């Protein structure tokens, strides 16, 4: 089985969100970038398929050279090879087209992405890839097993979960649950050393269009100060009369 894991390179969850160039660009100054958390859960499940079922695992990022340390981290966690499509990730559709092209050329059976990337919260790339390559698709995936050509997956739904039967080729949008938090791996020294000599292929992008374009960013208005109350009667009265939520 050939697995491709999509890795989105995102600001660490504690990052301060600021913009530059007249509020048109995300300000990367002092920001630490990491593997998108949803992708890290998926990558860890891919390592399980590698170790238990002999799968080969490649990782991909569509982005500039600045994303390479993130791809190297994925190699240090255990992926065999990395691919970087050398371009600016202008929107979700554009990224999906690039990944779909790599999937077709590489003959991957399973593509694992994340439910959403924590920066632009698009939640669209894996589903678009699935549709573009005519593969099956499971989103918000919290469990995945592959047996030959058959796949069983679970999906988080409002208030519970759904167990799904499907088949390869398959694309999933993963999240916590596809493996548990405690299964995540911190790269060790040996992994980091090995990652240095693993292949990181550069690919030029295919020609394709974007469908959306961000023109500017704003920050939400600062909210007023908290009203501290010292008894529950006052709280109930405020929630009823002022906030009108009960």
């Amino acid at each position, binding site marked *: 089985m050939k697995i491709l894991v999509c890795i989105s390179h995102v600001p660490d969850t504690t990052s301060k969100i600021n913009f530059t160039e007249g509020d048109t660009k995300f300000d990367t100054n002092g920001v630490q970038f990491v593997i998108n958390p949803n992708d890290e859960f998926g990558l860890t499940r891919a390592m399980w398929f590698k170790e238990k079922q002999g799968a080969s695992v490649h990782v991909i990022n569509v982005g500039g050279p600045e994303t390479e340390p993130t791809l190297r981290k994925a190699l240090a966690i255990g992926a065999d090879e990395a691919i970087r499509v050398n371009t600016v990730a202008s929107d979700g559709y554009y990224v999906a087209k690039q990944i779909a092209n790599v999937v077709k050329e590489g003959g991957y059976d399973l593509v694992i992405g994340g439910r959403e990337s924590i920066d632009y919260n698009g939640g669209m790339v894996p589903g678009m890839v699935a549709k573009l390559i005519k593969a099956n698709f499971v989103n918000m995936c919290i469990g995945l097993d592959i047996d030959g050509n058959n796949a069983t997956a679970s999906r988080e739904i409002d208030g519970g979960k759904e167990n799904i039967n499907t088949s390869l080729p398959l694309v999933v949008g993963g999240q916590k649950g596809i493996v548990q938090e405690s299964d995540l791996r911190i790269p060790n020294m040996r992994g980091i050393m090995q990652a240095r000599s693993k292949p990181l292929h550069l690919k030029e992008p295919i020609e394709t269009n974007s469908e959306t374009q961000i023109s500017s960013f704003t920050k939400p208005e600062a909210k007023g100060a908290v009203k501290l109350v010292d008894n*529950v009667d006052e709280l109930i009265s405020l929630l009823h009369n002022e906030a009108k939520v009960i």
Partner: protein
Amino acid sequence: MSVLVYTESEEGKFKKIALEAVSYAKGIADSLSTSVTAITINGEESNELGNYGASKVLQVSNDKLQNFNAQGFADVIAQAAKQENAQVVIISSSANSKYLAPLLAVNLEAGFVPNVVDLPLSTSPFKVTSSVFSNKALAETEITTNIKLIGLAKNAYGLKENETSLTAEDFSPNLADEDFNTTVASVEKASDKVTIADAEVVVSGGRGLKGPENWGMIEELADVLGAATACSKPVSDLGWRPHSEHVGQTGKPVSSNLYIAIGISGAIQHLAGVNSSKVKVVINNDPEAPFFKAAEYGIVGDAFEVVPQLIEKLKEFKSNNA
């Protein structure tokens, strides 16, 4: 030309987010001088959609579409959009809509913007405002394709009544075999519980509650308010509560009217997922807890004293206001 809106239902009944999506669709249709067509798969009593501005409803009833299936549902909505010559397609931000959205976008060659919080800034060029960076920023985005797909953020626009005369038509989509390559084998769901996604009020507990044995009062408070229960990430990692209750940046998003956080410190990753709730109430014994800065109301106090009092007084309040 028209604006098409996908209206979700559960057991035949339209969800509040569906009515909100119709209200929003009406707002857009007005600025484009056109009308709103709604599509429902298995929804009953579609008259209700006329109260919020739909002038036509396409009703799909098909045994094969009894259960949600992203590929099949996306295919049906795409066919409706083509028939209606829809220029804008509106969906909600429910888990199901988020699942089918990318499939629908590719099918229609429509540029897709999720988490949209308001009516378009302009319709030519077509520009919308959406929430990004887990509610820490807003982006203005231009959609450059002919058809535009908009995912409306929950509770951002609200319900707007708009009495419109409504005609209903049956719609029979052409379903393909590929629409059923992914099938649901079973569902595990606590059916009697209000879900975090649907709830108007969410009561959430953190590590400050010390252990799973203390969740009785959280559940009771939720009961009194008709609320869903939720928790912080460590609480679900410790196994005190199920993972499905974990809210925040890496858990479920919450956009309820009221979010009550009890014994939760207010770490940035927690706030990222709950900030779009309208009113946040914090109960914490540490006045320095960061959550107070992000909240509308707060009580500095011991949860084990405050929560039982709150339950008792709310019961009184509810019986007086019933």
